[in-house]
């Protein structure tokens, strides 16, 4: 028993000494102090809140992105890139995504929340011709140009030739007051 006690004593002594050699008490205070002050300031930074709003995350989804009924297509008017060699988020090879786009909101049936959807067109090849969808919810006449899907949104791309449309989740709709 004494032998085991002695072993334990030695082991703990050794470890304590090693720890004391590796670390400084001031260093410990500095880290702790930094953490305390840092954590206190986080809620004051508007950056943190902006970042939280910017990332809509990955909403839980259901449905088929190559069907007109897919929830993100509530305001679409065009060919689905999902049927044209691309996806609901990406352009088919050989086309360029328009940086200028029209934006609306759609309700996600999987979680009941409204999301901000950007209908970026893919441009540079002639019309895809597959999966033509026209749902037009929230579509406005061209006198409201930022809220109409009746114009060619291939703006800001090298070619103005329309090929197909994506439907990208860019945010969560603000539903407070």
């Amino acid at each position: 028993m004494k032998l085991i006690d002695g072993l334990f004593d030695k082991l703990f002594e050794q470890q304590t000494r090693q720890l004391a050699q590796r670390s400084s008490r001031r260093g410990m205070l500095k880290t702790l102090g930094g953490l305390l002050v840092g954590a206190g300031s986080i809620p004051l930074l508007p950056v943190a809140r902006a970042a939280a709003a910017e990332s809509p995350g990955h909403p839980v989804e259901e449905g088929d992105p190559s069907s007109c009924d897919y929830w993100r297509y509530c305001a679409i008017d065009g060919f689905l890139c999902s049927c044209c060699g691309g996806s609901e988020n990406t352009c088919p090879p050989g086309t360029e995504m328009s940086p200028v786009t029209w934006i609306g909101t759609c309700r996600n049936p999987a979680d009941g929340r409204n999301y901000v959807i950007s209908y970026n067109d893919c441009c540079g090849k002639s019309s895809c011709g597959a999966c033509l969808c026209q749902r037009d919810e929230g579509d406005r006449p061209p006198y409201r140009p930022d809220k109409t899907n009746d114009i060619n949104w291939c703006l800001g791309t090298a070619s103005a030739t329309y090929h197909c449309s994506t439907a990208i989740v860019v945010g969560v709709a603000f539903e407070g007051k």
Partner: protein
Amino acid sequence: MKTVLTILALLLATSLEAAELNPQRAQFNYQMSCQGCHAPDGSGANAVPRMRDYVGNFLSTQAGREYLVRVPGSAVSALDDAELAEVLNWIVLEFAGSSAVQPFEHYSPQEVGRLRQQPLNEVVQYRAQLLADIASANLRE
């Protein structure tokens, strides 16, 4: 001690100022009414003017400050005066970056409501002249 008190006062002032603006609501209104052309980060595209690291230039003169409200995208937008004022303040705080001018006096709904009654028609020429005036005013300083 004095320094500590100053820092605390500044922090308090910043948080009070931020409270007047709801960043989530402002960003949502930006997304719905501005982002389609001005891009998520305010960088614009081709003929669409860049706001990122640039929009602050307009705030160095009164005519420039008014321009940001009178430009058609603002003046005839579907946003009401309070929403438009909030989104403009958010755009300046979020995107002015290296072009920021201090202090920035926030737009009020009343100011925005008054200015948007005079929307600009020949906006491209007006903007070019405005920027030339701002550049020569900056040179004189």
